[in-house]
């Protein structure tokens, strides 16, 4: 059979591709240093955390009990994440089975997989689209440092913390679902210590 040569795409906009390429190049040039973890720049706030009000406790309880993950499944670790959601490991026990497809409604980004520079602007955008308060778990070696792909530095971002601040790191290649669940529990503990209402400031006023 004689095949018709594939016609021109109606929508194949080289200009748009160039624009997107420019965004990637800019981001790559800008993110040379890792963004410090929130623990470091929130340190001062964390030290005041001994004074938790009841309201704080309630809010934190709500937030840590219903962490809805955003969908961000670039690579291999995604399958351990899905396995963690699956029947055996069952993240739904923690109220986490609602995977919000829209980042606006999600609280937690589990970055399951290698990040490439081409993907980086999109991940950053998803992170910015998520509504505060939001948390990030870097899952797997690639998400922490680039893992075994780190030496392909022309394409691979050495760790998500070049792009977005990361709260909890879960090592492994890929981490087992148990490890991920442990990481989530650590995050829950972290949220429980969070201070939402600053009594001192309110009193000063």
């Amino acid at each position, binding site marked *: 059979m004689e095949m018709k040569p594939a016609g021109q795409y109606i929508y194949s906009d080289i200009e748009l591709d160039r624009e997107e390429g420019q965004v990637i190049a800019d981001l790559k040039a800008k993110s040379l240093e890792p963004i410090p973890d929130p623990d470091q720049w929130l340190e001062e706030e964390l030290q005041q955390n001994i004074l938790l009000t009841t309201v704080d406790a309630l809010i934190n309880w709500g937030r840590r009990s219903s962490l809805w993950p955003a969908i961000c499944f670039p*690579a*291999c670790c995604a399958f351990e994440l899905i396995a963690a959601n699956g029947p055996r490991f069952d993240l739904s026990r923690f109220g986490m089975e609602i*995977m919000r497809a829209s980042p606006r409604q999600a609280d937690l980004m589990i970055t399951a997989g290698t990040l490439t520079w*081409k993907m980086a602007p999109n991940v950053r955008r998803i992170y910015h689209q998520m509504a505060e308060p939001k948390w990030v778990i870097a899952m797997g070696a690639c998400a922490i440092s680039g893992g075994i*792909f780190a030496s392909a530095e022309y*394409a691979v971002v050495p760790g998500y913390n070049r792009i977005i601040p990361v709260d909890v790191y879960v090592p492994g290649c890929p981490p087992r679902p148990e490890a991920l669940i442990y990481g989530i529990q650590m995050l829950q503990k972290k949220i429980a210590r969070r201070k939402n209402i600053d009594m001192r400031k309110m009193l000063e006023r």
Partner: protein
Amino acid sequence: MAVRTEPFVLNMGPVHPSTHGVFRMRVTLDGEVVVDIEPVFGYLHRGIEKLAEQRTYAGIIPLTDRLDYISSMNNNFAYCLAVEKLAGIKVPERAEYIRVIISELQRIAALLIAVGAFLNDCGAFFTPFLYMFRERERIVDLFEMVSGQRLTYNYLRAGGVSQDLPEEFLPALRKFMDMMPRFMDEYDRLLQQNEILIARAKGVGILPAEQAINCSISGPVLRASGVKWDIRKDDPYSIYDRFDFDVPTQPAGDCYDRYRQRVEEMRQSLRIIEQAMKQIPSGPVRAEVPHLIHPPVGEAYGRIECPKGELGFYLVSDNSIAPYRCHIRPPSLINLTALRDMVRGWKVADLIIIFGSIDITVGEIDR
């Protein structure tokens, strides 16, 4: 009467619930009808082919695990075949049987995910997907027994497998084999005759056989179009010529056929495992292969029938410890060639299930 409206462009992905990873499509729509799509790749390009040129032959195996990460064992298998072809290594008998068992188990696991994800794309809200994950966990348990890993196994070696099967493996496999057909019947009862599924998938996204061949489609997608072509049968590698199994095909080449095809293939894989379990001999599991392989100058192409299609490794050697060039034939990427022709004129909802029925893994597309 058909009302024509001005086309508008919808950007699907790279982060979209049903693009199976970080795949992206620029979809031009007329109302809800797809006029054109342009796939955009590369969101997971990790330079595996480049990295392979810096690694020893044995060191590439972990990289191959991460290609199509839901069928890692098969990737190892194809790569090891290519290296053995290149260096002229003979594999011991027992290792061949272990490879076949492992490879077919992995095929079942990967096809389970493919079918589950397809049904999920049809909108069956996770139920079939999670059922199939339940069974996949059992297979993963078996793999964990032999390799200690859950996803990236790094188990096969050039010239055999890394270690022998543990004692308790074969009884555990026996138990799994007794259970699995029941589960398969359960899936069939759940959705096979479902009116909505048939209405959604039958006749949708037809891929004619000629075009499938012209587009170099392989694997279940090709067979669902009625082409009886299975590398296990037509170019038997390893010891596949010793087993008795059928190559199922489907007549129409639509989404429903591709779904049925995968279910049928799982049953055939069970048959192969059954026979291999009976025949498995004892003996060494690894040939005497030096740690640093220096294959003679030349090239070799090792290919297997992986759950997605023909997975091949094209290795070029310059007699050093690392391949001069390591090209991977990615079935996921090549199977997508026909996507554009399949979806034009269908609706957004059809686009999703046609795409889902091709069954891709982005790790393999972008490498």
